[in-house]
């Protein structure tokens, strides 16, 4: 009987450190980003929207190679040559957890669109990745239009409201 490879324990730090080493330009999206902005969720992977400009996807390929990223069929990611009209989301497994590469997430126009409201958030080990704004994270969830995401969408919308009140409260305190 064929043995299934055990799922590695999710550790986002080596994944993001690999991106940092190769100077990959990307915005964090999806559940991982939602956790960083305050959502009460659990995830086992990192989703990102990279820019497709210049040689960014080649650098991303190099970074992913360093963490043994493979498609489900055990083939290499080959993001630089991927046809994103046919495969808009590239799902990968790495030594440290799952990685999803989504150059144009649903409901957005991609990296440049998300970058406008994104923020660099310090997450430790000297890493400060760009993370999509709560509003944009809610926008993406809404555009996906999946019944299973309804609770997450309501939570994100509430988070946007609380964030607004929180920042307004802080500015009044000053």
């Amino acid at each position, binding site marked *: 009987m064929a043995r299934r490879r055990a*799922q590695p*324990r*999710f*550790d*986002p730090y080596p994944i993001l450190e690999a991106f940092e080493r190769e100077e990959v330009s990307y915005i964090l999206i999806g559940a991982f980003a939602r*956790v*960083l*902005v*305050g*959502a*009460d*969720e*659990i*995830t*086992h992977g990192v989703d990102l929207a990279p820019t497709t400009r210049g040689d960014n996807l080649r650098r991303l390929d190099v970074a992913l190679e360093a963490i043994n990223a493979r498609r489900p069929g055990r083939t290499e990611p080959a993001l630089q040559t991927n046809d994103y009209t046919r495969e808009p989301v590239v799902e990968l497994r790495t030594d440290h957890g799952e990685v999803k590469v989504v150059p144009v997430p649903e*409901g*957005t126009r991609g990296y440049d669109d998300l970058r406008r409201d994104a923020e660099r*958030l*310090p*997450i*430790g080990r000297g890493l400060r990745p760009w*993370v999509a704004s709560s*509003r944009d994270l*809610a*926008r993406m969830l*809404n*555009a996906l239009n999946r019944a299973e995401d309804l609770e997450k969408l*309501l*939570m994100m*919308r*509430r*988070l946007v409201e*609380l*964030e*607004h009140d*929180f920042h*307004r409260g802080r500015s009044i305190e000053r």
Partner: protein
Amino acid sequence: MIREARLLAGLSQERLAERIGVPRQSIARWERGEVEPGFDNVRRLLRSCGFDVSLVRYQADESAEARLGGRLELTPQERLVGMLGDPDTNA
């Protein structure tokens, strides 16, 4: 929600303002949350973007609300460590 609907409809602030007959600055202020648009305006805005408001009744979960508020007080690193730190959910 207004910005989200406008972007999904592919409209600029100017175009949406024209559609509902208000200055572009009003749209900008509503989107930034500087001014409350009121329910009637929200409804007009959403309809102009091809959406509508529907009422969904659900039980408000106050403990979830408090948890969410508490998480805003944490740093992004603390939020991440909080999620990663639970070995039962992150095997």
